[in-house]
């Protein structure tokens, strides 16, 4: 594949360029776009962690916000009641996310497909209920406000607070994304794709598929909780909205829109969803409708996600070129090309 090798050639340069852009962003962007960019980074990590389940292992989880919220509440409670420093609190958040996955994994991983979706959804709802009703500890629907935003000590005073936290997020998310890249390219990651494609076949080959899924679930939980912890610090606030299944659904939209099972797809989906939410909503309150239309168009025209757009365009161009010299039939003009093709097949048979 000629096209593929070219894009592979350019990939390191593209990633490097992207990294440079992200590093200099605080110097060119005002604080508001910078905070939107910070949010994009955090949700990219969230979407990528969901992608491990949804995209690579083929487990449609509608409960990923459980981990996001667990991380957020871990950070919020630690900051509020114990004053734990940020690095430790984030670490505990990750551990809490992994622990939640390890505890719930044996229950939800007994199922596949729609049943997995429902079980993960109910897991989120249970946690949501606890958070909502345990008012004394979690603050109920008012959440826990006033979480102090951590700052990188070596940047103190040199850049604005917004930029400081942006760099902190960039470092944490950068490391996390690099490790996700390593995981999905490892034999473990490839085995997950195998499970997605044909679990029984892999089982027949002797892979411990259940254990692999369990580990993937725990990993996704850990990354999800890390994103949630960062988000709680970023907003200085954690509330039940961060554990609600609506967020899990939004994560799913980000992943599927960008391209499930591709590495950068979730990032693109995240950018699109958040820009629609924060930029388009300034023009119109119907941004959700626009998101819906974009989603439908994507699913219809780019079933593998927006990340495939360049390939798809290339394909269509090639197709057009091939089809162009064909003589066009004049009489039944309302027939679509595919109908004609069907007719041809019928005539021949």
């Amino acid at each position, binding site marked *: 594949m000629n096209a593929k090798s070219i894009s592979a050639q350019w990939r390191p340069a593209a990633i490097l360029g992207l990294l440079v852009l992200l590093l200099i962003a605080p110097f060119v962007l005002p604080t508001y776009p910078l905070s*939107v960019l910070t949010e994009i980074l955090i949700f990219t990590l969230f979407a990528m962690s969901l992608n491990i389940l949804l995209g690579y292992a083929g487990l449609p989880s509608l409960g990923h916000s459980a981990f996001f919220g667990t991380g957020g509440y871990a950070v919020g409670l630690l900051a509020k009641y114990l004053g734990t420093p940020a690095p430790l609190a984030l670490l505990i958040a990750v551990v809490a996310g992994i622990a939640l996955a390890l505890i719930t994994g044996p229950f939800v991983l007994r199922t596949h497909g729609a049943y997995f979706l429902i079980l993960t959804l109910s897991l989120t709802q249970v946690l949501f209920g606890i958070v909502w009703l345990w008012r004394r500890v979690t603050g109920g629907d008012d959440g826990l406000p006033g979480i102090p935003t951590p700052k990188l000590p070596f940047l103190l005073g040199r850049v604005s607070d917004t930029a400081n936290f942006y760099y902190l997020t960039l470092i944490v998310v950068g490391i996390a994304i690099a490790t996700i890249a390593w995981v999905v390219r490892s034999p473990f990651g490839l085995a997950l794709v195998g499970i997605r494609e044909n679990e029984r076949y892999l089982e027949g080959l002797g892979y411990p598929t259940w254990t692999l899924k369990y580990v993937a679930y725990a990993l996704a939980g850990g990354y999800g909780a890390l994103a949630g912890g960062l988000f709680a610090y970023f907003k200085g606030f954690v509330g039940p909205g961060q554990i609600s299944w609506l967020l899990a659904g939004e994560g799913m939209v980000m992943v599927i829109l960008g391209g499930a099972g591709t590495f950068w797809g979730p990032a693109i989906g995240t950018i699109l969803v958040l820009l629609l939410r*924060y930029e388009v909503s300034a023009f119109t309150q119907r941004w959700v409708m626009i998101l819906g239309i974009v989603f439908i168009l994507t699913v219809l025209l780019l079933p593998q996600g927006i990340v495939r757009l360049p390939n798809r365009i290339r394909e269509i161009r090639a197709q057009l070129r091939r089809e162009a010299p064909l003589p066009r039939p004049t009489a039944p003009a309302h027939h679509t090309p595919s109908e004609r093709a069907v007719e041809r097949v019928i005539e021949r048979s």
Partner: protein
Amino acid sequence: MAHPEPHPVLGRRVSRRGLLLGVGVAALGGLLSACAGGGATPTPTSAPATPTPAPATPTPPAATPTPAAAATPTVVVTPAAAAEPVRIGLIHGYTGVFAALAENLTRGIQLYFESIDNTVAGRKVTFIQEDDASNPEQGLTKTKQLVERDKVHLIIGYNHSGVALAVRDYIHQSGVPTIVDNAGAQALTRDPQRRSPYIFRVSFANGQYEWPLGPYAVEQLGYKRLIFTASDFVAGHEKAEAIKKAFQNAGGEIAGEVYPPLDTADFAPFLQRISQMQADAVWAFFAGADAVRFVQQYADFGLKDQFPLIGVGDLVDEAYLDQQGDAALDVVTSLHYSPHIDSPENKAFVDAFKKKYGRIPNQFAYQGYIAGRVAAEALSKVQGKVEDKQALLKAIKDVQFVGPAGPFRFHPETQNVVLTVYFRKVQRLPDGSLGNVVLGKRENVDDLSF
């Protein structure tokens, strides 16, 4: 609707490409207009579309409006600093469950500013409206946008307590004078740790207009034992706690408590429990669709004959009275407003609102109107010089006037409104419609009184 003539040549292939192009252009436009996110695209994008009319020429962030602001018709910015209009950020949950409430708040604000021609001390006032979807995270981002990008001088808004609490720290740090026009979270003004010199509240703290009904029920209505029922969320509990305490202090006795979840479709199991209790009356707090359903089902269940229904004004808000119909008759509630308050100020407000929007204002329209008036009076006191923040804060704090519901002033310590609580009863008006007729009132109720 339909195309006048289905063009036969437009085959499936072509329209598909058109759609693809459309998606591409939309995506690119979104990326460009953000002028930020563009740098974050991790793909080597082969530009899907030929030169789009660039939607966002990179704007200097200073005083010029961003393309987003330019799209709203109200914003016009002239370069001269002196003639530059005062920018007020309006932020409410315009989408989601509280959309109707947010709209009424905004109508109230706009009604007041239109009455003064959107001009204060010769300076034009413009509004930048943002939607927080009653979601704390989005509210925080939108507040940052208003402060950092749109550089507003003043914020009016926050209908949702969760949003208000979440943005409190940011507002306190960035120091933008903010007038809260609905969110009732008590901590925002009552808690000495959480109140802020930049935050004023013109509406109420949860419990502030609820508690006076406790003593009133004992002394005027003769109810010694009450059942309390409210939606199971923070505001519901805060309101119930406030009146329970006042009711007990007045010598009343709590007969039972029932807390159905928010957005309950069928109240039957809860009404069943209430019907088995022994009491003189039921006190209730429900809002929105919950209120409509509760009042109707309460009457259908036959409980109205067993226990008279009293409660919070939201229960029989003017917006739902028609839907509730006779089920709402005789319900006694307490609130800081009623459109049937008999005063020249209120008559002027109700008439102006009716003339513009064709309906009777409810408490939220009133709160918006008051928020608009407070902002306008403070702005004119400082001669439109919003840049002097300390003077503006002091001017807001000192605002005093007689509004539709009586005298208005802030509590000097909490910066929360000191209001008059009205006891109202749903009755048939001479014109056949239902209305909250005022039975009595209690003046000078502040948010530290309970």
